[in-house]
């Protein structure tokens, strides 16, 4: 089972949901690409990995660190699910667009379905966001927030 490990001496090990294995395997298979050429899932994983490492460096309390890691894992799962929905939307839209007889109602239905996923995942991500705020000091969050920003900004329709 995939695990994020904190580097601190008192690190906790939190098991990841098995469902993430596929995403991680895909990211690994795609290889390491620098900068903008990185696939979205790889960017998400990289940003959240950096976040985990900063938690290990900057949060001395193991209980708080464990709570933070759980929220990071939750973000990982939700952003990967969102990326999967975006990838599926992209493929379905291209297929629908290629059909000259496609109706506006078909497009609207497709986009509405995606929108429902997006709104559901938005609520979950915001919940994780406020969990992170609740488990950090202002100074700690000043260091960690950029990683959240990078992870959220990585989701893409390509």
């Amino acid at each position, binding site marked *: 089972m995939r695990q994020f490990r904190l580097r601190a001496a008192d690190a906790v090990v939190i098991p990841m949901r098995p469902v993430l294995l596929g995403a991680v395997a895909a990211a690994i298979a795609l290889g390491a*690409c620098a900068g903008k050429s990185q696939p979205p899932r790889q960017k998400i994983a990289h940003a959240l*990995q950096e976040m985990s490492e900063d938690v290990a460096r900057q949060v001395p309390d193991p209980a708080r660190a464990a709570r933070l890691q759980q929220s990071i894992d939750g973000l990982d799962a939700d952003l990967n699910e969102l990326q999967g929905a975006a990838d599926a939307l*992209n493929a379905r*839209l291209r297929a629908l667009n290629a059909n000259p007889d496609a109706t506006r109602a078909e497009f609207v239905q497709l986009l509405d379905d995606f929108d429902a996923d997006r709104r559901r995942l938005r609520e979950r991500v915001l919940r994780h966001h406020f969990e992170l705020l609740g488990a950090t000091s202002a100074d700690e969050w000043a260091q960690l927030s950029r990683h959240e920003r990078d992870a*959220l900004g990585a989701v893409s*329709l390509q």
Partner: protein
Amino acid sequence: MRAGTSQRRGSRRCSGRGQRGQTLILIFLGAVLFGAAGAGAGGMFGGASLPVLRTHVREAMADQDLRAQVDRTLDRVVASAKRYDEDRKRFEADVFAQLARHDATPADLRPLVVRGDELHQRIRGEFLDLRFELRGQLTRAQWHAVFAGAAASAPVPASAP
């Protein structure tokens, strides 16, 4: 196993995803969670780059006047994409500024959620309008030639069904 570490140990080859060139509408989903994504706008036009799309149109349409109409619609697509990209950037900056605040509350974020959803709906509507305007300017055969990835090397007669 740590994702980042695994990636660093992994293959160095790069996927082609980032090298597809500029998509017709480069609207990222960076703020997709908050709605200002223009979700699917690129897909509505097949995701092809603008030069490729124009080339396909040139190949598929013999009639210069009709081609000029399509070009004007494509110009409007690009203009809309640029305008919304600016809106998106402003929106995204506001969202991330709120997320960076340690004292922000769910109530502080709610107006941004609403604003994002409204922007999302406007983008959707406008690009759907443009997509179907474009559809009305091409025959079925021309549409296939332009968007089905099998751009005809020979012009498709404008009278084709």
